C-alpha cells in the first residue's frame, strides 16, 4: 500500500460513514418534508422553507456554537441526555452526525421538492381518478418520474457532508475514529506541516467531489423529457 497507511484509510472510511448515515437519515425524513412543501399549503410554509434553507447562508460556526451550548451537560438538553441515557453528544460520532443532518438538510429537501413540483399535476390526478391512494401514487407514479432529482438530492447531500468542516471543528474534538473526518485531518496535517499527508487527503476529496458533481450535472440534462 505504501503511502496509504491505516490512519489514512480509517479517516476516509469515517468520512464516508458520516456522509452515508447523514444521507440515509435525511432521505427518510427529507422525503415527507419535501412532499408536504411541494403539495400542501399550510400556515407559515414560507417560514418552514426559510428555516430548512438556513444552513445554505448561515456560517457553520453559528450552528457549531449552538450545538456546543446544547450538548453541554450543564445545559438543559445535555443534562437530560446524560441523566436519562448516559449519552454525551459533544466529541462523539452521534453529535457530529446530528449537526451534519441539520446542516445538510436543504441539500436533500430542495432537489426533492423541485422534483415533485416539476411532475405535471395531470399525472397525479390520473392516478387518483383510477382509484389509487396517495401513497400508492407516490411510490408508483411520482418516484419513477423524479429519479434524476432523487439522484441529485442524494449525491448533493453526500458531497456536502464530505465538505463539512466548520461545525465539526467546533463540536468534534478531533478524535481519530470518532470525529476526525478527512476535512479536519487536512486542516490538522497542514497545521502540523505534514503537507504530504494533507495532499493525499485533499486529492482524494477533490476527486470524489468532482465525480459526484459530474454525475449530478450529467443527469440534469436528461436525453428526453416528458410533457
Amino acid at each position, binding site marked *: 500500500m505504501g503511502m496509504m497507511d491505516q490512519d489514512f484509510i480509517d479517516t476516509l472510511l469515517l468520512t464516508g460513514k458520516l456522509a452515508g448515515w447523514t444521507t440515509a437519515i435525511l432521505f427518510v425524513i427529507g422525503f415527507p418534508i419535501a412532499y408536504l412543501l411541494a403539495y400542501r399549503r399550510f400556515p407559515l410554509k414560507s417560514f418552514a422553507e426559510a428555516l430548512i434553507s438556513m444552513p445554505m447562508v448561515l456560517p457553520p460556526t453559528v450552528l457549531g456554537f449552538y450545538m456546543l451550548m446544547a450538548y453541554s451537560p450543564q445545559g438543559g438538553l445535555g443534562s437530560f441526555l446524560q441523566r436519562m441515557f448516559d449519552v454525551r453528544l459533544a*466529541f462523539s460520532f452521534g453529535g457530529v452526525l446530528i449537526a451534519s443532518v441539520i446542516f445538510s438538510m436543504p441539500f436533500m429537501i430542495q432537489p426533492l421538492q423541485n422534483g415533485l413540483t416539476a411532475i405535471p399535476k395531470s399525472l397525479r390526478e390520473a392516478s387518483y381518478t383510477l382509484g389509487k391512494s396517495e401513497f400508492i401514487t407516490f411510490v408508483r407514479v411520482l418516484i419513477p418520474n423524479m429519479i434524476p432529482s432523487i439522484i441529485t438530492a442524494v449525491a448533493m447531500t453526500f458531497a456536502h457532508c464530505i465538505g463539512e468542516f466548520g461545525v465539526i471543528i467546533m463540536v468534534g474534538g478531533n*478524535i481519530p475514529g470518532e470525529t476526525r473526518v478527512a476535512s479536519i485531518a487536512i486542516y490538522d496535517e497542514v497545521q502540523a506541516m505534514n503537507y504530504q499527508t494533507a495532499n493525499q487527503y485533499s486529492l482524494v476529496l477533490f476527486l470524489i467531489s468532482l465525480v459526484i458533481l459530474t454525475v449530478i450535472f450529467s443527469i440534469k440534462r436528461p436525453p428526453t423529457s416528458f410533457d
Partner: protein
Amino acid sequence: MLITLSVSAQKVNVAAAANLRYVLEEIKTAYVKQNPKAKVNLTFGASGMLVQQIQNGANFDFFMAADNEFPLKLKDKGLTSGTMSTYAFGKLAIYSISLNVDKLGLNALNDGSVKKIAIANPETAPYGERAIELLKSKKLYDGLKSKIVLGENISQTAQFAFTGNAELGFIALSLALAPDMAGKGDYYVVPQSLYKPIEQACILIKTTVLNTEAAKFKKFVLSPATKAIWEKWGYKTIHN
C-alpha cells in the same frame, strides 16, 4: 525613496500563542499608553499553526510562541531577524466547572464523573504537548487515552472545559485566571516539578522593510515594565 518612510508609526502585526490572549492585550494597552501613535495588531493561534502561516507568507512582524522550539523552526528557515529571546515561563493548569480540582489535584483525572479531558493538540500547541508528557510520566496516559479530546489550540481547549463539554481541561494558567473562567470553575496549578518548563520565546520576523516598531515592541515585552502584568496572569517572569 526615503519619502515612503512616513512620519506615522509603523504597524506591528504580532502572531501570538493562544495562551497570551489576555496578558498580551494588557501589555499592548500599556505599550500604546506610552506610545500613543503605535498600532499593534494581535493574532492568536496555536504556535504550530502560526509558524505554518508565517512560513506561507503571512504578514507578521513579531512571533511570540508558547515554547522555545517553534521560533527556531522559523529561524532555521531564515525567516527571522535577530535573536530568539525568552519572555516568560508559562504554567500548566487543570480547569473544571464540575469538579473541585483545586482540592483533588491530579486525582481529579481518575474521578468517575470524568468522561472527557480536553487537551490542546500536542503537535501544534506546547501546552498540549506538556499535558500529554505529564500523563505519560504519571503512567496515566493509556488509561485515559480514550477520554482525551483535542482542542485546536489552547483557547479552544479552555472553551471545551468552560462549556462543560469536557469535565477537565489542561490549559494555560493564564487562561484559567481570566475573569469568566475563574468565576465559573476551579483550577489546579500543576506542580512545575512534574513537567518540563514551558519556556516561551519570541523572535522578530524578517520583513522587506525594516519594522523598527516591532523591535521596539519586542524590547518593551522583555522589559521590567511588563513584569507585574506577566505575574498577574500567572507567568513566571524573566526578571527576578
